[in-house]
């Protein structure tokens, strides 16, 4: 009975909570994008559905689900339906290894606020996010049309190129923390007293830039830009399948933000975690507050995603690829070499 509760029921509850919260946040992101865009553009955004447009995601969801189910002629039906799912699922299962908070004492049990702690957590995240690219290629292929295929290939080439630089940029963190487990990385940041962003500023910038390019967001969103000749891999998608791609994009954004927060900004740690707080502020150290701190940091990153999209123009495809290979990869390698030297000399002491 104890075994069942510890290993089946509690993880199931945690998975349910994480999945539910994640879906809710993804739906909220669709509204947040429109509202933030509107405020930056001196207008108001959705205002009619619900007070100040709060119920807009509901209306959008209902609309997309009730739309006619269009399948292009001679398109591969099964792959056409499977592709958005392949794009969506990896974004959700990345959250299996991310620590949301410290351990919680409940009914005599110590429940760590994470789904699981893989000792190869970072490797797991990188490999799972690569699977998402498959969803895009399959979507373009299954549409049985020239332009979606070309758009899908461009998109996939962009994502693969930036994956390389992404991987290199987080190796500095790996070296300093000495472990692939995300839980260990957060705990090391608490031990050091400094968030890793202060020790690896270049690594953080490279990670975030590569993350933006990975999720096909501005300024790297040419493959899916509206004013482009090729409308991208999701041209032939409409209705519910399109909404799956749409959600996959937002889920990927949240996954990248969560990773950036965990790796560089201390995960669930509060600012100045090693300094004790006066009595009346002690609640800020509570285990459940870890969730709140994590949420705040991820929200700031998501806001930055939206902010960047609506401010800057977009790069042309060849300029995009040039930046990925000519600038980001060498910088990541240089960062790696310098960090390795410093770690060897000062942290590991020979």
């Amino acid at each position, binding site marked *: 009975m104890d075994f069942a509760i510890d290993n089946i029921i509690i993880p199931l509850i945690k998975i349910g909570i994480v999945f539910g919260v994640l879906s809710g946040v993804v739906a909220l992101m669709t509204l947040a994008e429109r509202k933030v865009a509107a405020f*930056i553009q*001196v207008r108001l955004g959705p205002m009619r559905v619900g007070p100040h447009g709060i119920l807009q995601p509901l209306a959008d969801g209902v609309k997309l689900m009730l739309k006619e189910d269009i399948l292009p002629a001679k398109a591969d039906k099964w792959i056409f339906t499977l592709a958005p799912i392949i794009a969506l699922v990896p974004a959700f299962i990345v959250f299996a290894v991310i620590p949301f908070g410290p351990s919680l004492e409940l009914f005599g049990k110590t429940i760590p606020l994470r789904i699981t702690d893989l000792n190869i957590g970072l490797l797991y995240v990188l490999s799972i996010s690569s699977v998402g690219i498959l969803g895009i290629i399959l979507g373009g292929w299954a549409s049985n049309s020239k332009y979606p*295929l070309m758009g899908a290939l461009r998109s996939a080439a962009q994502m693969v190129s930036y994956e390389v630089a992404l991987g290199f940029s987080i190796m500095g963190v790996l070296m300093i923390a000495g472990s692939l487990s995300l839980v260990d990385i957060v705990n090391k940041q608490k031990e050091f007293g400094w968030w890793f962003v202060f020790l690896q500023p270049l690594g953080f910038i490279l990670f975030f830039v590569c993350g933006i390019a990975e999720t096909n967001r*501005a300024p790297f969103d040419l493959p899916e*830009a*509206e004013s482009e000749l090729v409308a991208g891999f999701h041209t032939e998608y409409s209705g519910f399948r399109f909404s799956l791609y749409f959600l996959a994009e937002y889920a990927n954004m949240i996954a990248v933000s969560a990773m950036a927060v965990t790796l560089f900004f201390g995960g669930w740690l509060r600012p100045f975690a090693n300094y004790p707080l006066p009595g009346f502020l002690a609640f800020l150290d509570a285990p459940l507050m870890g969730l709140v701190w994590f949420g705040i940091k991820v929200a700031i990153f998501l806001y930055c995603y939206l902010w960047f999209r609506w401010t*800057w*123009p977009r790069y*042309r495809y060849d300029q995009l690829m040039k930046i990925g290979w000519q600038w980001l990869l060498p910088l990541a390698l240089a960062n790696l070499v310098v960090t390795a030297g410093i770690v060897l000399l000062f942290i590991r002491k020979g």
Partner: protein
Amino acid sequence: MAQAETLFDASELTVSMGPQHPSTHGVLQVKLKLDGERVLDAECVIGYLHRGVEKLGEVQTYGQFVPTLDRMDYIAAVSNCLGYCETIEKLLGVTAPPRAQYIRLIMTELNRITSHLLWLGTHAIDLGAITTFLYCFREREEILKIFENYCGARLTTHMFRIGGTQYELYEGFQDQVRKFIQDFPKKVDEYETLLTENRIWLDRTKDVGIISGKDAIDMGLTGPSLRGSGVQWDLRKAKPYCIYSEFDFDIPVGEVGDTYDRYLVRMEEMRQSARIVSQAIDKIPDGPIMAKMSKIIKPPVGDIYHSIESPKGELGYYIVSDGSTAAYRARVRPPSYVNLQSLKKMVVGHMVADVVAVIGTLDIVLGEIDR
């Protein structure tokens, strides 16, 4: 298997950037021959918006033709009006009174700002900077409010009549215009903050769509596109019409002739227009707003060509009169039509994504091209 034509053969691919496209400003079809991403050839197919404006010029009387001309270049409707009214006045040998001339000048320069703001907004949104579009339209809204207060319409204004203007200035006109001109340079600075030194913008617009000064003159390019290539030619200074010779303003000129230069030229032109309006608004003389002439316009037999500097280039009118109340031939020289011919020269050798930038930088209006 013989040399099968697969999707990825290095042969040419003809693609139609069709009439319905978010970035061709209007219904323009550009047939592109592509080799991978490089453009080998570009052919424009126009005529989707042809409405027979020049034929209407032969049927409607001179006075009735003026509102039809608003619909030609619907963004710079005031310039169309001004050009035509000045042409007929020249044919008749009539001059508009000074007060009317001042009103015409102020409205035309405000319209130049309007047109360039729309150009900036659409050009930026094509290249991905979506917010600039909204900011430009906010400024444009202020000017359109001035137009609405003055003549009753925002876009197709029909402000001037042959011989002067119809509407007297309204109460509060000078304050409203002065307030706008005061705020405007700060707003242009904002657009420049967002775009001019932005590395992404520089990468997208520098060395894209280069045309040399000599080629530009050979193709008949006029307007800011010509001045971007280094040729100092502006009809307001070269052949002054209206009362431009009384005001102090500069003509910005580029050096390289790429998209970035044309962008800088138009940004500076907006500032210079604001400068002209701020000089003119204080000096409006009193007097009549309509010249003394008969109500029925019957010009003497003859022909005349007169052109003005519209925001898009040299807008010319060639009117042939046979002595009756309607023209025998009313021919319009649309600047966008002539400017569009240089699209092929600018685009060949660049990537597909640059075609969008070049169409944006030429500042074409299909209403003018197709008439």
